[in-house]
């Protein structure tokens, strides 16, 4: 193969690789933006960030809700067997769609927050901060 053909071929490949790299760079920037959004939602305690990979104890700790409250809400009796089960596996175990289970958990958390927010106009609990509990007299 002559050097001129090699030169043209490499030039074409370089253009393609450059295009692909620019595309990947744009994808990376978009992924970083999505990550920032997700991070903001997670730190603000938004319940929409609950994923099917989480376990009930994980949800309880991240969203500051007592574990037994979630168990009661979901009518789970055998707590030990579900302790290390992801929400997807739990949904399979109870023969229900995982989205509906997550939706139930989201409602449980929102209800708990409403019940345990002091009526001072402070929306600290809605933002996912841990409940401070009642003040001791």
């Amino acid at each position, binding site marked *: 193969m002559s*050097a*001129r053909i*090699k*030169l043209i071929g*490499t*030039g074409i*490949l*370089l253009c393609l*690789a*450059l295009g*692909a*790299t620019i595309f*990947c*760079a744009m*994808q*990376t920037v*978009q*992924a*970083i933006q*999505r*990550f920032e*959004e*997700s*991070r903001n939602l*997670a730190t603000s305690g938004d319940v929409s*960030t609950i*994923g*099917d*990979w*989480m*376990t009930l*104890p*994980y949800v309880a*700790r*991240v969203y500051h809700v007592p574990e037994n409250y979630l168990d009661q809400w979901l009518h789970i009796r055998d707590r030990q067997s579900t302790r*290390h*089960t*992801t929400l*997807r*596996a739990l949904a399979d175990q109870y023969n229900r769609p995982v989205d509906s289970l997550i939706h139930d958990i989201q409602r449980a958390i929102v209800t708990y927050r409403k019940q345990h927010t002091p009526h001072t106009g402070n929306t600290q609990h809605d933002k996912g901060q841990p409940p401070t509990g009642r003040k001791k007299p």
Partner: protein
Amino acid sequence: MSIFLSTLLNSLQSYGYPALWLSIFVAAVGLPLPIGLVLLAAGAFAALGDFNVIVLALIATSASVAGDCLGYLIGRLLGSKPLEWLEQSRSGKRFISPRTVARSRLYFKRRGGWAIFLSRFLFSALGGIINLLSGIELFPFRYFLFCDIPGEAVGVVIPLALGFAFGASWEAVGDVLGAFSLFVVGLLLVIVLLIRLIRYMCSVQRVKTGHRLTEVQNVTDVAPIIDPPAPSSGHLPLS
């Protein structure tokens, strides 16, 4: 989330460290499992106290190295013989010349270390193939381990640390890592192609200058016939 990943995470939660070791080992041998995401999730679980992050790192590194060694051994035991046959037999020589095999072996010996190291964390999809190739090419085992262990350590620590730091957002971190590694691969490809292009341009330039020189030489060779130089002896030509 894929069913594979969901199953892996469920087994990680249910069976703990042994499940993690086994899944990483199998992935290191060559099965395409989303281990980077599993490690991110494991880091997120560790952040809330489900696992010890140091034990996770040790287990994941040991499993990866063990899987890589098995891949290398498979390549060495099963792959090197067909290559030898291709190299030595008459019918094998039709497919691939012994010179090509020797050249590829030499090239892998020179650059294989970097390929092994980088494929542990940057191009992890190629890890299994590079393990096999290292065995087939009879890459020295000690040097293989020397490149493999630090690479795997980096490849394990990065996702674990990111999962530990960013917790519930690990899926978004996984997307960033995936996109970023593709970007790095593209960038490396651009650099390699750019270097090749410059080399080819230089060789074309050299060929051109070579042609010009030969043309000039031809001209100087032809020139005395047309216009002979004056005699240097100082004697005038006899008329």
